[in-house]
């Protein structure tokens, strides 16, 4: 049974209060290494959002039109991963043909995305929460935008932190994680927004 949810609160919750990265810890691996550089962060954020929406739709269709009618739900993890890998591959080819300029800025990030936990995470959330097709699109778009926002904010902060005197043991990943912690706290503050329903 699909839940009845306010589309706006779903959208805002997935961007802010339940940010896929800051509240669910998904997509951390590339997050820490890429956020060193603002330009790459922007490219990766765009790519993640793009792939999320497409895989969200594709996997919803595969689940509801193929796996559930055939009673093969137990194979879903394998199928989801194959679909994600295939979508990324096809996307790479299409972008290369259609817009070489976009390929230059996005292309190098696409292979990184296949192993990004955020993508599979969002797909699994869609499956387990039994979202409808429209809800899936809203949720995956919101999650992608949230991830993009978080990585941009973090890379901007890291630019400042790099110049700050940080204890030797805390340099690098340590201070980055603590920064992310503060960002997560700030994002929780958005929960006031969701009272408007």
């Amino acid at each position, binding site marked *: 049974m699909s839940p009845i949810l306010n589309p706006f609160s779903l959208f805002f919750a997935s961007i802010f209060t339940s940010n896929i990265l800051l509240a669910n810890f998904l997509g951390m691996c590339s997050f820490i290494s890429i956020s060193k550089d603002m330009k790459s962060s922007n490219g990766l954020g765009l790519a993640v959002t793009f792939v999320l929406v497409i895989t969200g739709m594709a996997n919803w269709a595969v689940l509801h039109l193929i796996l559930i009618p055939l009673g093969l739900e137990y194979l879903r*993890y*394998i199928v989801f*991963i194959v679909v994600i890998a295939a979508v990324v591959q096809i996307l790479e080819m299409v972008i290369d043909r259609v817009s070489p300029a976009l390929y230059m800025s996005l292309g190098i990030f696409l292979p990184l995305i296949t192993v990004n*936990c955020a993508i599979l*995470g969002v797909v699994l959330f869609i499956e387990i929460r039994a979202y409808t097709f429209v809800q899936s699109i809203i949720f995956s778009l919101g999650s992608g935008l949230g991830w993009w926002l978080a990585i941009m904010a973090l890379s901007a902060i890291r630019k400042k932190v790099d110049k700050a005197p940080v204890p*030797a*043991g805390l340099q690098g990943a*340590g201070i980055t*994680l*603590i920064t992310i912690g503060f960002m997560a706290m700030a994002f929780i503050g958005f929960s006031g927004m969701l009272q408007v329903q």
Partner: protein
Amino acid sequence: MSQTKDILKNNLWDNNPILIQILGICSTLAVTNLLSNTLIMTLGVSFVTALSSLTLSAIKKLIPRKVRMIVQTLVIAFYVIIVDILLKAYSPEISKNLGPYVGLIITNCIIMGRAEAFAQSNPPGLSFWDGLTSGLGYMSVLMLIAFVRELLGFGTLFGYRVMPMAFTSGGYNWTIMVMAPSAFFLVGILLWISKSIMLKNETGGKK
């Protein structure tokens, strides 16, 4: 024999997946506010890492280069589904509590990392041991985080009340420990401590 010991020490401390490689915190960090959920999740990760390393090492000579990544993913997904099926059948309560997080073990970078870095060039037995100890190194750090979060956030350990009721009541409760930011802070602080100790050892060794 000393090789197995080296691997153990390496994976638990010198090259701890979380503290040094900062890998695989994606999926499991979310459930570290309760010890029991963390235990099941990290056991699942250890099980999958050990067995997928074993399997991949055993069939490594047969895998064509072009499809290596996809075969690795297939093997990992296979074991995760096994864990999922076992939990559903024999422990429905826990399976319900963990929800989608069991499936997310697939994307845990540690598993793929060990398969690529170790199992690819080592015999099956050692690969199994390497995967298992990596999982244990991972477990030890996350259990430590869960210990702090559950103790300060809920005043309990494994669901048993340890702290006096007043500790978590009224306006004095540490809600932040229950919520996501505390996990980031704790990992950050642990990184700080472990890195400081290592820096000290290094300078000490140079004398």
